[in-house]
């Protein structure tokens, strides 16, 4: 049995806004094992990015336990220990804004080293060079500024920055969504290599299921702040149970016949994601669900176990 690096129990994050309470994350439980790549899928309003932000400390949770290496880390960055800030790192979605346009790559990647006193001043350049090589960038990129390098390379710099503190958990929030297919392939391959070399654990967040299929060990899908299905990757794609999972899989444009054959055909996309201030009663997905039954609009389903590693939250699978 592999060791659990991160355990989340009953985690909630609510925001108070002028329109009402936004239940960004509404009581979720999952664990990430050491060394695995845990995939989190969801569209806008699902809460997946909020999970990432709370884990890394942008906000504190409203409720729930977040256990990292056995310790509760549910605090925001102002109160967190410096050690924790080294151990959990994040790579953001938008390469354009995740690097300060007025700072050089050396300053950007070297900053965490200086801040955590990981290197003496004269060794920083050498360590930055090492990190750049690790992400597959030429060493002389150190002197470049973000405006001179392309989107994919900016993401590689962001990854190098994340690796500077030798973290154990790296959260990747849609790292390749803004990139082209060929750049995406390069960045993803680099990430796989680095994970092997440094024995890292990844929380990989994306809406791109074809990447998920080839990168993640387990996949979880979120909708309106709740976890709908969790399974091993192969099961998730070959035997998706939740109607939302099926809807998502059938909406993805694919570029080959074999993939088209694999897609669940019976559930084309319907309706829009409701506003998170106005969550529907019962199961949040019921207004868009083609397979809904009577209880769906009244009662919120519980997470049910299909088999050892496959969980679904849907009334269709409840045994009476």
């Amino acid at each position: 049995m592999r060791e659990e690096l991160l355990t989340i129990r009953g985690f909630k994050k609510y925001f108070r806004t002028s329109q009402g309470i936004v239940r960004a994350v509404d009581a979720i439980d999952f664990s990430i094992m050491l060394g695995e790549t845990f995939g989190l899928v969801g569209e806008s309003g699902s809460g997946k990015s909020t999970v990432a932000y709370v884990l890394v400390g942008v906000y504190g949770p409203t409720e729930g336990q977040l256990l990292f290496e056995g310790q509760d880390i549910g605090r925001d960055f102002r109160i967190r220990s410096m050690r924790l800030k080294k151990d959990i790192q994040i790579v953001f979605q938008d390469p354009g804004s995740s690097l300060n346009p007025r700072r050089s790559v050396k300053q950007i990647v070297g900053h965490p080293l200086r801040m955590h006193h990981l290197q003496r001043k004269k060794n920083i350049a050498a360590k930055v060079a090492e990190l750049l090589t690790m992400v597959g960038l030429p060493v002389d990129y150190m002197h470049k500024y973000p405006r001179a390098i392309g989107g994919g390379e900016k993401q590689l710099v962001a990854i190098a920055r994340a690796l500077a503190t030798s973290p154990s958990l790296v959260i990747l929030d849609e790292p390749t969504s803004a990139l082209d297919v060929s750049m995406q392939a390069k960045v993803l391959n680099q990430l796989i290599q680095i994970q092997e070399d440094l024995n890292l654990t990844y929380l990989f967040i994306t809406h791109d299921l074809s990447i998920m299929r080839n990168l993640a060990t387990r996949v979880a899908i979120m909708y309106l702040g709740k976890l709908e299905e969790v399974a091993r990757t192969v099961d998730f794609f070959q035997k998706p149970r939740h109607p939302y999972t099926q809807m998502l899989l059938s909406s993805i444009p694919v570029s080959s016949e074999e993939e088209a054959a694999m897609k669940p055909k019976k559930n084309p996309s319907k309706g829009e994601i409701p506003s998170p201030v106005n969550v529907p009663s019962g199961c949040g997905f019921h207004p868009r669900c083609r397979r809904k039954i009577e209880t769906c609009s009244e009662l919120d389903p519980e997470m049910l176990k299909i088999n050892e590693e496959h969980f679904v939250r849907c009334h269709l699978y409840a045994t009476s």
Partner: protein
Amino acid sequence: MERESNVHFSVRIADTSRRYWYRYSSNPMSVLGLVLFLIIIMCALFAPLLAPYPKHAEAFVDVTNINQPPSLKHLFGTDKIGRDIFSRVIFGYRFSLMIAIMVLGISVPFGVVVGLIAGYYKGRWIDILLMRITDVFLAVPPLLLALMITAVLEPNIMNAMLAITVMWWPLHARLLYGVTSSLSDEYFVISAQVSGSSTIHILFKEILPNCIGPILTKVTLDVGWVILLGATLSFVGLGIQPPKPGLGSMVADGAKFLPGVWWAVVFPAFAIVLVVLSCNLIGDGLHDVFAVEEV
């Protein structure tokens, strides 16, 4: 390693200068503004050398030469006590620019810091406190505030500068407040926060360098406005005191003799127009430089 960094540094500066100049010079009016302003700076710096009658800028009277029209001897004519207006205008530029530098040199850093802090902590008590104080200063009409201060204290150039400084910093605070609060949502700032950077680092090394564009644009426009305000104060007798040459007080002196002795008013007034115009043109040009999206 050290030398490599220096090489890259100079290459980068050269590249950036080319890029900025390309954008700036695409508008001929901006270039004109720059040329005019450089001439004015020359006047200010080398006033004793450029003015044909440097002594006329101080206590000097020549009753034989009162109110002479423009001639080869006196390009802009002479004023009511016989002083050469051309020389006095050149020295007037020196005083005007001096006021602008001192006023902006104090009010801009102060306003920037206030705006940075308030914008970064947007929504918290410090933001509310700082911005409401800023609002109070902005609510008073600028000229009225300046008049009040100089009327209460002794009317002289130092107090005029103090008055203008006091009412100038809120404008920069407001500018920085806007820029900082929008920059605070950028991922590179969030990244710095969650990795544990100190607030000082974030404010001055992450956010402030990205504000240089708007600040610089505003400062160039401000030079013109501050000079105009200083001239207004000296026009009503509250700024530069006689016998020192203030462009505004020169206009006031000559106004009594209009329309006959027109040169005593027109040339100093035109000098004010010229400096404000050139600052505005430069400000516009800088706006183009910093506001354009890269292809």
